[in-house]
C-alpha cells in the first residue's frame, strides 16, 4: 500500500462496486426483469443504510483491503520507516527468491530449511486430513443413521466437551500425556514394556495426534450434516437388492455425502495447515512447521515483507488444495459451504 497507484485502486474499488450494482439494477428495471420495491423501499432507508454500511465495512476493511495490503507488502524490500517511499522502495521478487534459494550466495543453492518446512506442512496436513476422514466417517455415519436420540445427545456432549476448552489447553493436555515423564511413559515403564522413556514429542507422535485431535470436531460435524439428510430407505433398498455393506457405502452413502466429505476435508486441511498451537507446543526439535516460520519472520527476524510473502505462499498452497479437492470430487465452489 505504499505506492499511490495501489492506494488509489483500493479506494476506487468500493466506488466501482457501487457503480456496478447501480448499473445492474438500472438495467434490470429497464428490461423489466426486476419488479416490486427496490432495495431502499423494501428495507426502509435506515435499515438499508445499516445493511450497506455493515457489509461494506466488513468486506472492504477486514477482508479485501488487508489481503491486498499483505500481498503488496510481500513485493517490497525490508526497509526502516525512514527509508519507506525513498529511492530504495521498489517492487522486488527478493522475498520469494529468498523462500526458494535462501540468502544470496548461500552454499546449498536452495533454501532447504524453509522448503522442507513447507513441504512437510502440506504433506502432513494431507495425511492428517485422510486419517481424520477414516477415523470420523464410521462415527458420523452411526450418529446420522442409527444412533438413538438420547445416545446421540450424549455423543454430542462428549464430542463438544474437549472443544470448549482452549485450543492451547487441549494441546497442553496431550503434551502432559506424552511427555517423557508423562503418564503413557510412566505406565509403560512400570509394566516393564520399555526400559527408557519413549520420546513421543521428539518423534512427532504428539504433533500428529494434536493436529488430528484439533480437527476431529470439524470433520465429524460436517460429515454428520451431510449424512443426516440421506434417506434411510435408500440404504434399505440397496441392502434388499443384495449389496454388501461396502457397496452400500461406496455407491449410495458416499456419493450422497460428496459435498459434505469435500468440505470436511477442505476445512480440516485448512485448520491443520494453519495450526499454530500444536506445532509450537508439540513439535519436536527437528520438525519445522510452516506457521512458526512465518511467525519468526515477523517477530524475530523483523522482516515483515518476507513474512507477508511467506503467508501468501501458504495461502496459495491452501487455494490449490481446495481447487484440487473440488476437481477430484467434481464439485463447484458454492457446493462446499462449511
Amino acid at each position, binding site marked *: 500500500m505504499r505506492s499511490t497507484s495501489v492506494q488509489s485502486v483500493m479506494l476506487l474499488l468500493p466506488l466501482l462496486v457501487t457503480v456496478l450494482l447501480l448499473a445492474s439494477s438500472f438495467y434490470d428495471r429497464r428490461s423489466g426483469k426486476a419488479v416490486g420495491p427496490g*432495495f431502499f423501499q423494501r428495507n426502509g432507508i435506515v435499515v438499508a443504510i445499516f445493511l450497506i454500511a*455493515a457489509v461494506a465495512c466488513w468486506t472492504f476493511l*477486514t477482508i479485501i*483491503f488487508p489481503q491486498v*495490503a499483505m500481498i503488496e507488502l510481500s513485493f517490497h524490500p525490508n526497509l526502516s*520507516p525512514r527509508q519507506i517511499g525513498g529511492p530504495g522502495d521498489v517492487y522486488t521478487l527478493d522475498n520469494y527468491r529468498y523462500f526458494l534459494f535462501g540468502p544470496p550466495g548461500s552454499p546449498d543453492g536452495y533454501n532447504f530449511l524453509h522448503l522442507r518446512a513447507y513441504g512437510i506442512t502440506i504433506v502432513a496436513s494431507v495425511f492428517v486430513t485422510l486419517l481424520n476422514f477414516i*477415523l470420523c466417517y464410521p462415527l458420523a455415519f452411526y450418529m446420522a443413521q442409527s444412533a438413538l436420540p438420547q445416545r446421540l445427545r450424549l455423543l454430542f456432549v462428549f464430542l463438544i466437551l474437549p472443544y470448549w476448552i482452549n485450543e492451547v489447553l487441549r494441546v497442553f493436555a496431550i503434551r502432559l500425556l506424552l511427555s517423557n515423564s508423562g503418564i503413557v511413559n510412566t505406565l509403560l515403564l512400570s509394566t516393564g514394556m520399555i526400559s527408557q522413556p519413549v520420546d513421543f514429542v521428539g518423534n512427532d507422535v504428539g504433533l500428529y495426534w494434536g493436529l488430528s485431535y484439533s480437527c476431529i470436531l470439524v470433520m465429524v460435524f460436517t460429515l454428520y450434516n451431510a449424512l443426516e439428510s440421506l434417506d434411510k430407505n435408500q440404504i434399505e433398498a440397496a441392502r434388499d437388492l443384495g449389496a454388501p455393506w461396502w457397496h452400500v457405502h461406496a455407491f449410495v452413502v458416499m456419493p450422497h455425502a460428496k459435498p459434505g466429505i469435500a468440505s470436511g476435508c477442505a476445512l480440516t486441511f485448512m485448520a491443520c495447515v*494453519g495450526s*499454530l498451537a500444536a506445532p509450537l507446543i508439540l513439535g519436536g526439535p527437528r520438525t519445522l512447521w510452516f506457521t512458526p516460520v512465518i511467525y519468526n519472520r515477523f517477530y524475530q527476524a523483523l522482516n515483515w515483507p518476507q513474512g507477508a510473502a511467506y503467508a501468501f505462499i*501458504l495461502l496459495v498452497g491452501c487455494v490449490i488444495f481446495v481447487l484440487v479437492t473440488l476437481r477430484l470430487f467434481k464439485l463447484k465452489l458454492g457446493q462446499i459451504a462449511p
Partner: protein
Amino acid sequence: MSADIFRRVTFRAYLALFLFLLMAPLLVMTASAFNTPSYPQAWPIEGFTFAWFSKLMISYDLIEGLGNSLIIALAVTALSVPIGLAAAIVMSQLQARFRAIYYLVAISPMLTPGIITGVATVVFWRETTRQIGLTFLYNGLFLSVAAQTTFVSTLCMLIILARLQRFDPSQEEAALDLGASPLQIFTSITLPFLRPALISSVVLSLLSSIEEFNATTFTILAQKTLTTVLAGRIRVGLTPEISALAVLIVSLTLIGAVAHEIFARHKSRRAKAD
C-alpha cells in the same frame, strides 16, 4: 449372522477407543490439577491438594489476559452479530448475478487459515494508521478485534442465513398490507423471527473469540490475552496451575451442558404433554 456380530463388536471397540482417545487428555489434566507434585503429574497420585487453584488466583498475567480476552470477545460479538445479520440479509436480497462472487468473498475468511488473516490485518492497519495519523489505533486490542471480526462475522452470517432461508415472506407482505413501515417490519417481524439464530450467534461469537489463538498471536503485539499467556507459559514449562485453569473451564462447560440437557428434556416432555 456371525459376521453381523463381528461387525457390531468391532464398531463398539472403535467407538470406545475413539471416545477414550478423545477424553484421555482431559482426564490426565484433571488428575494432575489435584495432585501435589509441582510438575503436572497424573500418576502416581502423591497427595490431594487445592494449592494449584489458589495459585491461579494470584497469577496476575493470567488475570490480565483474561480481562483482555473478555474485552475483545465483547467487542467482536458487538460487531460480528450485526455484520453477520446484515451480510445474511444482503445475501438473500442481492441480485442473482452478483451472488456467487459475494458468497465467495463472504465465505473466504473461513477458508483462510487464521494466521493469514492475522498477518493481513496487522500489515494493513500498520500502514493505514501510519498514513492517516491515527497511530493510537495500532494496538493489540484493536487489531485483534479487527482480525477476529473478519471470520466470526462469517460464522454469524452462516448461522443467521440458515434460519433466514426458512423465513416465510408472506408474513412481511401481510404486515405491509396492514400498513407497517419497512422499519417496523424489520424490528417486529424479521428480528423476532431470527431471534434463536441471533442468540446462537452471540454465544458462538463469544466462545470462538475467547478461544482464538492463531490470528491473535499475530495481532496482539505487546499486549496479552488468555490464550497467548497460556501458550507462553506452556512453552516455558508445564505447571499444574494450567491444569487447574483447564479444570475450571471444563467444569463450567459440563454444568452448562447438563443444564442445557435438563432444559431440553423438560421442554420436550412439556411438548409431549401438550
